[in-house]
């Protein structure tokens, strides 16, 4: 789920899209008698079934954890959900506040079309049912960064519901095997973002920025544990998790805390907690003490949001006044699962490789551009892109777009490798030279550094001959029937050829000489 989410959000985006997944329940019995190393790994992608890291003693019950996530993601739009004010990342505080944003009395919300389209698109991408009629509600609470005293959201009838997302996850002791999981999406709702509070404890002040909150992604996790077959446990809500890593750690911690609490005869309170990322634990949130009653009420200033499809589109409708679900569906880009399937089908790629290609922004495009320009096998290209290029990028903390090596340059290199003009170890050297970004082509580097494979068969025969002559003991070994001994000779010949000879050809020549 993290993948598409991250594709939708980015710098400079405002307006909240809450994606609630409260009802998705992942139950998994604890693996009997073993501490599961999988917990970290599994929960590091938040929507996966969670396994309790629980060592069972004889006679003890198994525990199952149930986790639901409420994901708040900002929509990429030029203006806010209900006002015309601009959206801009890192703008000076309160510089992008309309009269509506400041809740001046008499101002009214006006729904942003772009945000509705984004919500429909998200719903379609997550296989949701799109509600042709959805409603807005007011959720009331007093907080300094909520100037109206209520937040406009879609509590009763959201824009999309009942979706699901399939994703892959590495399993097994070496995390080498890719397994597919499904997470259910309860609903997608459009929601107004609150402002941002900056607490100045020193001066006991709170400063408010009504440009609205900064985070592009914020997750609240609802967690409970219970014994399989028994009713669900009391849940706690861990709020405001803003990274996948902290989300995973918070969930792991909270599950374990609840199990410990219950096994020690304690009880779980239905409470709101926060995650202390320094201590790695969850703590009750003090300012949310007491039961909140949000006093939901229909938002009277926004008529029901009505969407159409091509069949239901009124004949007289002005295109700018209606939103056509079918049109958005047609405009939907290829979804990641389809892309991955295509990669597997077309290139015979391993599923995990298709995930890796899509997980990094721009990497798939890079791969496809290399494929367009090279004669090398897809397998070779995949290997070079994922193992070599990605490794270098990660090592230097670079985005794909910042790669000093262009797809064409890599394609040129892989062509040389494919035509056996260079050895793979020479290819690595060429890659390092290319990485320097000096504008040289692979061909230039090969010729300058004399990295080309020895094409002169006679010269290579000569080298083999002298090597055989110079190492009678090794030759003896071979003759005695040690099959590995020939590798030693191959290595020596390669060294003598300054790594520029094709090992396969060396082997053939040696075998001929020794026959």
């Amino acid at each position, binding site marked *: 789920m993290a993948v598409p989410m991250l594709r939708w959000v980015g710098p400079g985006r405002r307006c909240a899209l809450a994606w609630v997944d409260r009802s998705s329940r992942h139950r998994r019995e604890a693996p009997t008698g073993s501490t599961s190393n999988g917990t970290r790994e599994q929960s590091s992608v938040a929507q996966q079934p969670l396994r309790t890291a629980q060592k069972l003693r004889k006679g003890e019950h198994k525990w199952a954890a149930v986790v639901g996530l409420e994901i708040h993601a900002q929509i990429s739009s030029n203006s806010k959900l209900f006002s015309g004010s601009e959206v801009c990342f890192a703008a000076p505080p309160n510089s992008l506040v309309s009269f509506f944003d400041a809740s001046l*009395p008499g101002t*009214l919300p006006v729904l942003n079309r772009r945000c509705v389209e984004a919500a429909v698109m998200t719903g379609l991408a997550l296989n949701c049912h799109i509600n042709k009629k959805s409603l807005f509600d007011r959720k*009331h609470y007093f907080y300094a960064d909520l100037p109206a*005293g209520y937040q406009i959201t879609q509590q009763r009838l959201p824009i999309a519901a009942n979706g699901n997302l399939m994703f892959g996850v590495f399993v097994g002791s070496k995390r080498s095997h890719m397994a597919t999981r499904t997470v259910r999406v309860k609903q997608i709702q459009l929601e107004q973002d609150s402002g941002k509070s900056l607490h100045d404890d020193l001066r006991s002040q709170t400063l408010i920025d009504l440009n609205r909150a900064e985070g592009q992604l914020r997750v609240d996790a609802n967690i409970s544990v219970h014994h399989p077959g028994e009713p669900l446990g009391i849940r706690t809500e861990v709020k405001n998790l803003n990274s996948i890593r902290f989300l995973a750690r918070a969930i792991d911690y909270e599950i374990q805390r609840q199990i410990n609490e219950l096994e020690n005869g304690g009880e779980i309170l239905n409470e709101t907690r926060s995650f202390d990322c320094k201590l790695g634990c969850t703590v009750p949130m003090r300012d949310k003490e007491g039961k909140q*009653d949000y006093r*939901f*009420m229909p938002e009277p200033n926004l008529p029901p949001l009505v969407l159409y499809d091509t069949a239901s589109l009124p004949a007289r409708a002005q295109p700018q006044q209606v939103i056509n679900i079918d049109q958005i569906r047609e405009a939907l880009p290829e979804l990641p699962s389809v892309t991955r399937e295509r990669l597997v089908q077309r290139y015979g790629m391993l599923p995990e490789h298709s995930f890796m290609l899509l997980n990094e922004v721009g990497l798939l495009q890079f791969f496809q551009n290399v494929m367009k320009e090279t004669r090398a096998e897809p397998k070779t290209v995949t290997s070079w892109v994922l193992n070599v290029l990605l490794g270098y990028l990660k090592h230097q903390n670079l985005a794909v777009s910042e790669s000093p090596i262009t797809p064409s340059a890599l394609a040129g290199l892989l062509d040389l490798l494919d035509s056996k003009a260079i050895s793979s170890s020479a290819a690595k050297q060429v890659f390092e030279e290319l990485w320097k970004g000096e504008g040289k082509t692979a061909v230039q580097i090969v010729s300058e550094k004399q990295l080309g494979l020895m094409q002169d068969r006679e010269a290579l025969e000569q080298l083999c001959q002298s090597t055989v002559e110079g190492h009678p003991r090794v030759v003896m070994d071979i003759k005695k029937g040690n099959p590995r001994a020939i590798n030693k000779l191959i290595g020596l010949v390669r060294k003598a050829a300054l790594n520029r000879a094709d090992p396969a050809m060396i082997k053939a020549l040696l075998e001929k000489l020794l026959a």
Partner: protein
Amino acid sequence: MNEKGAPDKLAYSRRKRKESGISRVSVALKQGQITPTELCRKCLSLIQKTKFLNAYITVSEEVALKQAEESEERYKKGQSLGDLDGIPVAVKDNFSTSGIETTCASNMLKGYIPPFNATVVQKLLDQGALLMGKTNLDEFAMGSGSTDGVFGPVKNPWSYSKQRREKRQQQAQGESQAAEWLITGGSSGGSAAALAALTCSAALGSDTGGSTRNPAAHCGLVGFKPSYGLVSRHGLIPLVNSMDVPGILTRCVDDTAIVLGVLAGHDPKDSTTVQDPVKPFTLPSLTDVSKLCIGIPKEYAVPELSSEVRSLWSKAAGLFESAGAKVIEVSLPHTSCSIVCYHVLCASEVASNMARFDGLEYGHRCDINVSTEAMYAATRREGFSDVVRGRILSGNFFLLKENYENYFIKAQKVRRLIANDFVNVFNSGVDILLTPTTLSEAVPYLEFIKEDNRTRSAQGDIFTQAVNMAGLPAVSMPAALSHQGLPIGLQFIGRAFCDQKLLTVAKWFEKQVQFPVIQFPELMDGCSLVFENEKLASVSLQQ
């Protein structure tokens, strides 16, 4: 307008047909009989003279004079913007006015100066109207007397009219009683008083449960509540968003049509306004009412209805009948549930709408700063009156999770039934409903305040709030003077978005009843040119 050819004749013919007062003033302005500045100064002087009425909270003298000057320039160049150019208007103090304090008659908003104009205000100004000031009301429009605002009660100009004094003399009532002043009704009482006292040509009220129609009835004015969605609410500080509409107060129906023509239509800032383009509201003079079917809802004949109003109501029905219209008794069976339902929905939305007044961004803020919560509590205790706090408290009670189904949802269902009552009646062939606007004529202040705000509101809104729940257009028409010499209004209710038809019928009625113009000669010197006293006795419906 024909600038050179026979303007006198045109003016004469207009007068003869008793067309719009605004049109008449407009003609006078075009002909140069009076300049916008002169008109503005006369109104300002009348505002001064009638200050004791407490109709205005803020008199925007400088703004009005500047607007008058600009208007004068346009008239000089023959570039008048239309019928409203140079016309003095008053606006209820719950409409946001850019640069002019907007208080809602609440401590909470004292000193609040909005940075923008309500759409309706902007539209009036765009037509060249002169903004004379902001008028008094019940705090946040919660009331039906214009007695419950922080700036004190509004006095009904009819308390001091020649007509009332004469009646009292005839009935030989004591002077002390004669000094008893009357309420205007409310909550738009300031606008009604300002207009009845001739300090402006038209006024904006707001109407959530009858707040424009009720004071119009008590002050002898035309009080129009448009269909919900026809006129933008943007900038109107809300009471109940789902029922609020800007209301129009004028002295005659044609004036209402002129103002409505300017105000009506889609506003991109208010998503609940109609998308369809709105045609200008010109009203034909109806001569034949024989194809008209007037419905008389039997549930409106409540026991509390004064006999005088009851009798006037049936006379009005008789007027239509004798002119050939079909008049039938109809039933709106859920009427008795209406006021309770209205109170639940009203309180709930009030609780929500008032949540923004926390002392942080604007308006009143208390001195307490030990914590944000303590600041909220003290600010709201100091800023809101008991009436407002009471509605907030009950509204929050209705919205609690445990009560929501039992109160809010039920009230919404009843609201649907009430709206369907109207739909059913109109679908049965009825064109217009005729009802009383209020239970009685205006009562003296001292009598009015004997009951609490809630009881008074329930009585004051009894015939009017159902219309708001159904979103229908309705107009209170002055029908006759009572035995006390006080105005009595009757209400006409139309189908949703058939505002023009409603006003056309109202205009026919207006013509039949010839309601008299208020007379207080001691105030009127120098103003007769503009707001001419048509010394017509009310005959048709006199008791």
